[in-house]
């Protein structure tokens, strides 16, 4: 197990390095890359631009820039934000907890809903609940996340006025219940895609385990259906779900940008969107890399958990 863990961790390093190098190359392909913010400023003279380029090291040969950039990243130095005038790592670190709160709530919500819907649908295959659930989940997968967010905002915040429409806390508020109220709509928005996807997944893996011999044995022993479902079927159906959750991290990252933009949630996605509009290049690259780290980490955790949960798998 430890050896497997170490091997996987080591394997993640070239992957992240590849992402970093490729991002760099990609950005080099874009004319007017890192200095776009300054180059497009009409009031900036040629000498000033050259001075800035020199300070940023943009007048150096490209391979040298790449090595310097990689070296800085490895030391945790992501550069200085053009618009916030402080280290990028600091700017990102300030908002990461908010995004993790949003993503975490969304994932928990999704897991609960997916297990509930999936098992109920599988229990009576092709029953009324199953048909309704699969139709709803088809819709959930086809809907644009941000549009669902807009519709929730329109219905529950604007028309009914039950919940706040934007932000993370009211002016002067910020207590637990205040944040919780602000969290409801964004959390549902970010979760909708995975509720739909995961519940279909739980449904099919539950149906698969329902047909196993050990389920027949448990029923033959006279065990009541409730305990068969929870103790025997669900426990086995859950294991593959772990992988799916890990794989869906990119979905949640995209979801975070959209949800936070729609609901003005002060997180990483919102920071990213704001940085896009002002072309704050260091912030953008920093969040891009952090996103890649989260994706790789998600896959890694899924792999490890899979081994922990399923004793049949040995590494």
């Amino acid at each position: 197990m430890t050896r497997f863990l170490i091997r996987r961790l080591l394997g993640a390093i070239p992957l992240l390095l590849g992402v970093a190098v490729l991002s760099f190359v990609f950005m080099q392909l874009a004319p007017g890359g890192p200095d776009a913010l300054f180059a497009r400023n009409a009031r900036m003279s040629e000498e000033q631009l050259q001075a800035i380029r020199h300070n940023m090291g943009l007048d150096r040969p490209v391979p040298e820039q790449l090595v310097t950039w990689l070296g800085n990243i490895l030391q945790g130095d992501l550069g200085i934000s053009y618009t916030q005038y402080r280290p990028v790592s600091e700017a990102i670190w300030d908002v990461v907890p908010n995004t993790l709160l949003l993503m975490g709530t969304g994932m928990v919500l999704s897991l609960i809903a997916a297990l509930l819907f999936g098992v109920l649908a599988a229990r009576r295959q092709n029953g009324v609940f199953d048909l309704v659930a699969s139709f709803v989940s088809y819709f959930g997968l086809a809907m644009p996340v941000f549009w669902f967010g807009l519709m929730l905002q329109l219905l529950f915040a604007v028309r009914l006025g039950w919940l706040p429409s934007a932000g993370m806390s009211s002016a002067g508020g910020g207590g637990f219940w205040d944040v919780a109220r602000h969290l409801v709509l964004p959390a549902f928005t970010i979760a909708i895609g995975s509720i739909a996807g995961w519940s279909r997944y739980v449904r099919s893996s539950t149906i698969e385990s329902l047909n196993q011999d050990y389920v027949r044995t448990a029923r033959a022993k006279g065990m009541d259906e409730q305990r068969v479902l929870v103790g025997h079927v669900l426990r086995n159906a859950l294991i593959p779900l772990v992988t799916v959750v890990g794989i869906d991290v990119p979905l949640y990252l995209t979801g975070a940008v959209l949800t936070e933009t729609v609901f003005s949630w002060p997180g990483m996605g919102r920071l990213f969107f704001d940085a896009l509009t002002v072309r704050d290049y260091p912030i953008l690259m920093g969040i891009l890399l952090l996103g890649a780290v989260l994706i790789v980490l998600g896959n890694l955790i899924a792999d490890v958990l899979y081994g922990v949960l399923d004793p049949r798998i040995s590494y």
Partner: protein
Amino acid sequence: MSANVTLETAAPGKLAESGNAASGLTALTPSLTSRAPRSPGQIAAARFRKSTLALFGLLVITLMCLAAIFADALAPYGENEIDLFNITAQPSTAHLLGTDELGRDELSRLIFGARVSLLVGVGTALVSTLVGIIVGSFAGYYGGWIDSALMRFVDVILAFPAIFLLLIFFSIQGSSVLTVILFLGLFSWMWLARVIRGEFFSLKERDFIEAARSIGVPDGRLIWRHLLPNVGAAIIVSTTLNIAYAMLAEATLSFLGFGVPAGTPTWGNMLNAARPNFTTVPLLAIAPGLTLTFAVLAINFVGDGLRDALDPRGRA
């Protein structure tokens, strides 16, 4: 005239080849089953027709394609026609779905929007299928270090938060319909490449490939004529589902303001433009979103129907 001649001289050879194959099949089938001879394509088509959802999807897509093609005739107004007396107007007999913030007819823009949305969807899917086939074939056929290198590359691309990268690129570089298609395509081929590679690995060991190789069929022809047709189902299904993915991705980029340039009517751009006014004229946001949802839903239904029809083993 000369073109006609060459066509005629070339045709008989082709005909004889396919004719032989067909008669070979018909000669075999009656001894196996008593039913009328059917090609694999016919069998798949029959299975596809049994799925109500897939047929419904096909109907919706057909209607959307027709709307896109005949948009000029169908739409009550031009895509950029401005009605200054009706700005962000509620629905009326003149404007069935109301007008947007510049007084443009929402229904007309919805119809014209189908053009770009479908174009981006299909274009992206074709790019991703092309790249997926090339990478998957190379990795699967040649194996060895070529395979390792390409698959590591796939791993790296999969670890990319693709939407982030595209947003950065387009915000700095600007975008057009063509670049949106190209770059979305370059980030959605990985699944197909992996499937093709895996299938090639097992197909390579089969006797018919060995036979073809032993009579000296060149690599390119072997891949194109003998290996790829065997993964046709995966290619068709992946292309279909990628159309839906690309339409959603285009809407996402456009909604954030960094997809297809703002003046062009696409459903994503309409949602972007609707944001400031959607509390007063909710239809401006409801209509494009609902249209997009139905389009994606329809394509997904067709994709699932095709999967079940082409690959009965894969049925849950």
